[in-house]
C-alpha cells in the first residue's frame, strides 16, 4: 500500500550526522551519531523493494533486507528489528562494523546508478532504538532439553551460538579467557567505533535468556575440552578467534614503543588505558606514530594514537590505496582526522636509542609487480630507495595468526598447516566428536558477520546432534 503512494522524486542517500573531524580526533566518543526517526524513514523510502533483492545475496546471513526496511518506512521499528533478529542477533554491532560496501550495499541495485541504500545505517538505527527504548521483552524460548553446551570464547561467533542454542532450550555456558566478554568487539574495536555498552547489553540479553558466562577461564589451562566433555557437556563449540599477533621479523622489533596492534588496542580498549591514570594500565602516548598495515586493525590503531595526543600519525603500507583492506568508512574517517598515508613503503629495520626506545626506522619504497596468490599486485622493493623516517612509537597491524594455546592442547582436533581448525564448512563439525568450531579460528582473521554466520551454521548442526545424534 504505502509503496504505491510514493511518487518518484529522487531522495539522495541520507548521510548520518557525525562528530566534526577536528573535535573527534581528540576524543573517544562514537564518531557517527545515528539517524533520527525522520532521517531513517526518509532513507528507508529510497529502497525500491526489489522483487529479487540482490542486497540479500550480499549479506552473509541473508537478512530479509527489503522487509526490515519496509517496516522502518512504516514506522514499525520494533517489528523491523525483530525481522533482523531472525537472522542476526547483533544488528547494532553489524550495522556499525560490517564492510557494507563489499556486502549488502555493494550489490544493492541502486549502487549500479548511484548510491546504495544505507542498509548498515538503518540496521544500526532500529537496533539502537530497540536497545534504548524497546520493551526489553525476551523472545519465546523452547522448553529445557536437559542438554548442556560449552561455548569457548565470547566473540561474535561464540555469542551467536550461545544465543541460538539457549533459545532452543539447551543449557549453555560460555567460557571466556579475558575478564570481560565480547572478544574483538571489546578488546580490539575502539569505543569511538563501537561503544562497549552495546556489546555488554547484548551479553546481558543472553544472560537474561539464561546463558551462563564464566570469565577468567582460559580453556586449555584451567580446564581442557576433554574435561568439559567428561564433566557432562554434550557439545563444545570453539570460537576462540585468531589471537596471535604477527610481527614483521625485522631488526629492532623489541624496542620499547613498538606494539603489536593486539597489545596496543587491548591496553586502550579492554584495559581503558586511554583513561590512565584513572585506570591503572599505562600506554605510550607517541607524538610521532607509525602504524604498519592498512586493514581495520591498522585504522583503529592509528585513530587511537591520534586520540591519545599524537602530532603525526602515519599509516605505512607496502601496497597502494586500492589494495587497502579496511572498510571504506574507516579509511575515509582516518583521512579526515589527519592520518597520513605512506603507501608503497615497507620498513626494513627499527632504530633505537641507548635506552632501547624507538627513535625511527629505515624504509624501502616499493612498486607493484605481478599479481600474487591473493590476486593483488605484489609489492616489489625499488633498489636503492632506502630512506629514514622518524617516529617515537610504532604499531604493527599486519595481521594475526592462530593462537595454539587451546588447539594444540586438544587431542583429536585436526588443524591445517597454519594452525586453524579444520571443519566441515556446512556444519562447523571438527574432526573431534562432539566438538564444533567457527569464526576466525577456522577461517583466519575475517569479519564479525562471517564469524556469526559460522556460529549460526554450527548451532543448527549442534541442535541437530543434540536431537538426533552425530
Amino acid at each position, binding site marked *: 500500500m504505502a509503496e504505491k503512494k510514493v511518487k518518484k522524486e529522487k531522495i539522495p542517500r541520507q548521510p548520518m550526522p557525525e562528530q566534526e573531524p577536528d573535535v573527534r580526533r581528540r576524543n573517544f566518543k562514537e564518531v557517527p551519531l545515528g539517524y533520527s526517526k525522520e532521517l531513517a524513514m526518509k532513507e528507508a523510502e529510497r529502497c525500491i523493494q526489489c522483487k529479487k533483492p540482490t542486497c540479500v545475496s550480499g549479506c552473509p546471513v541473508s537478512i530479509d533486507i527489503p522487509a526490515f526496511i519496509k517496516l522502518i518506512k512504516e514506522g514499525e521499528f520494533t517489528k523491523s528489528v525483530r525481522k533482523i533478529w531472525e537472522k542476526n542477533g547483533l544488528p547494532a554491532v553489524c550495522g556499525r562494523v560490517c564492510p557494507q560496501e563489499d556486502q549488502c550495499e555493494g550489490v544493492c541495485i541502486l549502487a549500479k546508478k548511484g548510491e546504495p541504500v544505507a542498509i548498515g545505517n538503518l540496521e544500526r538505527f532500529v537496533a539502537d532504538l530497540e536497545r534504548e527504548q524497546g520493551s526489553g521483552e525476551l523472545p519465546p524460548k523452547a522448553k529445557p532439553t536437559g542438554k548442556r553446551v560449552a561455548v569457548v570464547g565470547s566473540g561474535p561467533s561464540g555469542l551467536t551460538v550461545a544465543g541460538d542454542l539457549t533459545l532452543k532450550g539447551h543449557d549453555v555456558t560460555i567460557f571466556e579467557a579475558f575478564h570481560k566478554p565480547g572478544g574483538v568487539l571489546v578488546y580490539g574495536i575502539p569505543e569511538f567505533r563501537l561503544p562497549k555498552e552495546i556489546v555488554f547489553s547484548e551479553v546481558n540479553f543472553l544472560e537474561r535468556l539464561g546463558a551462563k558466562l564464566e570469565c577468567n577461564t582460559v580453556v586449555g589451562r584451567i580446564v581442557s575440552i576433554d574435561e568439559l566433555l567428561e564433566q557432562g557437556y554434550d557439545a563444545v563449540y570453539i570460537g576462540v578467534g585468531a589471537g596471535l599477533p604477527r610481527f614483521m621479523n625485522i631488526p629492532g622489533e623489541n624496542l620499547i614503543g613498538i606494539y603489536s596492534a593486539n597489545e596496543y588496542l587491548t591496553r586502550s580498549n579492554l584495559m581503558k588505558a586511554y583513561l590512565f*591514570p584513572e585506570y591503572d594500565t599505562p600506554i605510550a602516548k607517541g607524538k610521532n606514530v607509525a602504524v604498519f598495515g592498512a586493514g581495520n586493525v591498522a585504522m583503529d590503531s592509528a585513530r587511537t594514537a591520534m586520540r591519545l595526543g599524537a602530532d603525526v600519525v602515519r599509516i605505512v603500507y607496502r601496497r597502494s590505496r586500492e589494495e587497502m583492506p579496511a572498510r571504506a568508512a574507516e579509511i575515509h574517517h582516518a583521512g579526515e582526522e589527519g592520518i597520513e598515508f605512506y603507501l608503497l613503503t615497507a620498513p626494513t629495520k627499527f632504530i633505537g636509542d641507548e635506552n632501547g626506545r624507538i627513535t625511527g626506522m629505515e624504509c624501502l619504497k616499493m612498486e607493484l609487480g605481478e599479481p600474487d596468490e591473493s590476486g593483488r599486485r605484489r609489492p616489489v622493493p625499488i633498489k636503492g630507495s632506502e630512506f629514514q623516517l622518524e617516529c617515537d612509537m610504532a604499531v604493527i597491524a599486519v595481521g594475526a595468526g592462530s593462537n595454539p594455546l587451546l588447539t594444540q592442547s586438544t587431542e583429536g582436533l585436526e588443524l591445517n598447516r597454519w594452525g586453524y581448525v579444520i571443519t566441515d564448512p556446512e556444519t562447523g563439525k571438527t574432526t573431534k566428536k562432539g566438538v564444533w568450531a567457527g569464526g576466525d579460528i577456522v577461517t583466519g582473521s575475517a569479519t564479525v558477520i562471517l564469524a556469526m554466520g559460522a556460529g549460526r551454521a554450527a548451532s543448527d548442526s549442534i541442535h541437530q546432534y543434540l536431537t538426533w545424534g552425530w
Partner: protein
Amino acid sequence: MFEILKRQEMADGTVVLNEISAPLIAKKAKPGQFVILKANETGERIPLTMAEADPKKGIITIIYQIVGKSTALFKSLQVGDKFQDIIGPLGKPTHLEKMGTVVCVGGGTGVAVMHPITRGLKEVGNNVIAIIGARTKDLLILEDKMAAASHELHVCTDDGSYGHHGFVTDVLKEVLEKEDVKLVVGIGPVPMMKFVCKVTEQFKVKTLVSLNAIMVDGTGMCGCCRVSVGGKTQFACVDGPEFDGHDVDFEELMQRLQAYTAEEAAAYGKYKGECKLA
C-alpha cells in the same frame, strides 16, 4: 570467589602474602606457574607466581613485593576482601626430573617463586642445595620453608647482617666448585639472574631462570611479554616463564621492564597522595 582468607606481612612490610580462595585454579596449578590478578574495575592485570597451591582446600598463595601502584593496592586488601579477577594457571610448569644434585638460587621476592620449585625438585628425588639471599636480614623471606624444601640451605645478605656476608653468586661458585651439579635454577631480580648465569656458564651447568616480563593477557595474544632467547623472540607467558638462562638477552629484558617507568611513578605518586588524604 577470590576471597582473601589469610594475609601476612613479611620483610618489614615490603612483602605481603595472601592466601586466596580459588578452587579451580588450585586444582590445576603446578610449580612454576603463575596467575594474573586484577583487584578492581579500574585495576591493572598483574602477574604473580603461585608460591603454593592446595587443591584440597582450594587455596592458592601469592607472595608479592610492593613496588608500585598495583602491588600497593593489593597490599591494602584485607582478609575477607576479594580480588575481582584471577586468571590461571598460566605459563609452562617447571620440568621436574630426577637429575642428581641441583642448586636453587633465590634472591629477594624470587625466593617465593623458588620455593615450590625447590620442593618439587626434592620430591622427585634430587639432592637439593638452596641458596637464598636478600639485601639485609629484615628483608629475608621464607627461610624456614626453604630449609624444609631442600637438603642444604645457604643464606646470604648483602650487608652481612645475617648468614653469609655477600651475594648468592659467591656461594653458588663455591658449591659449583665442590659438587657435581646437574642443574641450577636462578630466580630473583634480573641483574641477579644475569650474574647467576655468568657464573654457571664458566662451569657449563645448565641454568633455568624465570623471566618477569611485563604482561597483559598472559595467553600469547598480545606479544607484550616478548623476550629474546637464543636470538629468537619468545613470549614469556606461554613459552616460559622459565628459559635456559644462557640464551636469554638480559639487557633487552632490563630495558623493556623500564617501558613505563614515568607512568608508573606518576600513578604510584598519585595513589600515595590519595591514601594520605583518606
